[in-house]
């Protein structure tokens, strides 16, 4: 291991510098320590890794292609743009990578009941999917507002046998779903495995989810070396909690020549107060078990975020992102609702791919960035989800009734 590697975190307390940690109620502590021990053991067990790899290959459909977006590249007239096509995974997003890892761990720990939070519903669908596959009970917490805007995914979860529990507290979105999932976990801690969907939550979740998602970056690295004979120059990914971004970025952290760009949801605009830009407009704070950048007021009350994309509508961000931002390794930018919608349509027309509204933010940032880069710049966008789930939202914004 490199002495000066950026890839060794977190420390034994689950810290990435100031960030991370285990800020949870005592009821959960024994369970979190048990999870950490179980994960450390599984990580070292070749049989666990082999089973994980085999499910990724035959059930998820990995590796996902690294696709040269020729017409998008020509249209933007700058960097050579590749799309990492995690939207082709089973269930249509990167979320399933992590779900396979955690469900195998849950089974190993003998847990019979799985709970999860979901925003866009992608993580909920992925969780319901693996629960069906492994025959485990599944309860999904989802904000009432997200239930309204992600109807197709709610129905999919129910078809897969999950119970979807609407959350009516707070802003009725992802943050509140996570509060409710934590309340369930505290109540049913002995029987229940909490399958967190992003690189957030108390240690060991940020590191564990990152490890399961890092398959994205490892594949992208190998694929780019094969196609272009060298590393990419720029990686771009949208951040909600930060899992698709960390999955792509982590294998490249020590490759200093590779720029890492995280795209936050600017909602109606970064200065309107209606956004979800935790790193650009938040301050370090403690929510859902870890310290990280957080949208909060002067008094430390969490501010309700806003984004057209349910998957990015979260007031925090994973702790490793916060640390990488502070040390200058991660660049952070943002795209508005409108820019994301424009990028959604751009990709549909030029490449025949409907992106989810989450990666549409990464595409929007790319559309601003790429024209200013030279034609030999290799840029990878994490196309972490497909847009079928979002067609109702997009239609509404275009004034079309379905």
């Amino acid at each position: 291991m490199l002495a000066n590697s950026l890839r060794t975190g977190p420390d034994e307390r689950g810290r990435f510098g100031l960030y991370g940690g285990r800020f949870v109620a005592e009821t959960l502590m024994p369970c979190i320590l048990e999870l950490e021990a179980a994960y450390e053991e599984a990580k070292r067990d070749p049989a666990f890794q082999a089973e994980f790899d085999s499910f990724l290959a035959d059930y998820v459909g990995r590796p996902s292609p690294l696709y040269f977006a020729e017409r998008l590249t020509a249209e933007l007239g700058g960097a050579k743009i590749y799309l990492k096509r995690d939207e082709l995974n089973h269930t249509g997003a990167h979320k399933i990578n992590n779900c396979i890892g955690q469900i195998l761990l849950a089974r190993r720990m003998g847990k019979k009941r799985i709970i999860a939070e979901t925003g866009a519903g992608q993580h909920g669908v992925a969780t319901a999917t693996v629960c069906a596959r492994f025959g485990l009970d599944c309860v999904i917490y989802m904000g009432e507002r997200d239930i309204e805007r992600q109807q197709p995914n709610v129905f999919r979860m129910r078809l897969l046998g999950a119970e979807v529990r609407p959350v009516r507290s707070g802003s009725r979105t992802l943050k509140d779903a996570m509060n409710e999932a934590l309340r369930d976990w505290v109540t049913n801690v002995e029987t229940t495995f909490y399958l967190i969907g992003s690189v957030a939550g108390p240690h060991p979740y940020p590191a564990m989810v990152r490890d399961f998602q890092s398959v994205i970056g490892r594949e992208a690295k190998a694929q780019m070396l094969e196609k272009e004979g060298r590393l990419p120059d720029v990686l771009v990914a949208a951040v909600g909690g930060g899992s698709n971004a960390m999955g792509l970025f982590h294998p490249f952290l020590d490759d200093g020549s590779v720029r890492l760009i995280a795209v936050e949801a600017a909602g109606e605009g970064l200065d309107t107060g209606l956004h979800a830009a935790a790193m650009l407009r938040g301050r370090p704070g403690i929510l859902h078990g870890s310290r990280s950048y957080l949208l909060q007021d002067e008094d430390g009350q969490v501010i309700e975020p806003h984004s057209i994309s349910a998957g990015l509508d979260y007031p925090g961000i994973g702790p490793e992102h916060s640390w990488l931002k502070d040390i200058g390794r991660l660049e952070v930018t943002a795209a508005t609702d409108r820019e994301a919608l424009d990028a959604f349509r751009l990709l549909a027309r030029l490449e025949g791919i409907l992106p989810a509204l989450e990666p549409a933010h990464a595409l929007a940032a790319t559309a601003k960035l790429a024209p200013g880069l030279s034609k030999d710049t290799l840029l990878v966008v994490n196309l972490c989800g497909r847009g079928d789930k979002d067609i109702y939202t997009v239609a509404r914004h275009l004034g079309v009734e379905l």
Partner: protein
Amino acid sequence: MTTRIEQRFAALRAEGRAGLVTFLVAGDPDIPTFERLLDGLPAAGADLIEIGMPFSDPMADGPVIQAGNLRALAHGVTLARTLEIVRRFRGRDQTTPLVLMGYYNPIWAYGRLRFLDEAVSAGVDGLIVVDLPPEEDEELCLPALERGLDFVRLATPTTDARRLPTVLRNVRGFLYYVSLTGITGVKEAAAEQVAPQLDRIRKHTDLPIAVGFGIKTPEQAAAIARIADAAVVGSALVAEVAAHLDSEGKPRGGLVAAVHDKVRALAHAVREARR
């Protein structure tokens, strides 16, 4: 030097009875009504007062206390205002121990050392911060102890023998035993399940043990008072506040008296429990 909390538990022990700990959310339903509630608690029989510091995302609380937090926030109750409320109360009452309970982020946002210094000067006696387990003691617990503030920790049914010493390590004031796995105000405590747990914990510590989460009625409080050093009642009192609000959330006449009556009934049961 013994703290106000230690003195109160010593006095309770001398009287041969358990104490009643009451919980209300600071500034719920509004600041003036809350201050009237607070002022009457000692006379109504509260031996120790816990005040919740409002937070937007109270993850360990059930719907009743969540709603209390939101009502207080809607009335502009900040951490600074909570400290002012305590300061005014201390001007009028120098003996009733007062503990602030809440979540870490408002304290962190305020500046943790600044908060501790101001809490001491306002007359706070102890802190309970739900999302600070012993693993994070450097954040707040150790600097609080240095300043003479007691730090009360929660032990739960999941705190096993191996972990108990860690949980007890830096506790001062009293230990708060959470009688069930879960959030506040949903399930009900069963004294017969709590008793063996308290016996187990007492093998490791001489600290007074208060038991809470799920105590709603005088009967339940009495059952706990027979086995613990104090019974904590929260959701039942916050529910009483909520029951006396009109459709616009304004307090109806009788709110303060109703809450105090409830405290009186609980206190009576706790005081009679071991007779």
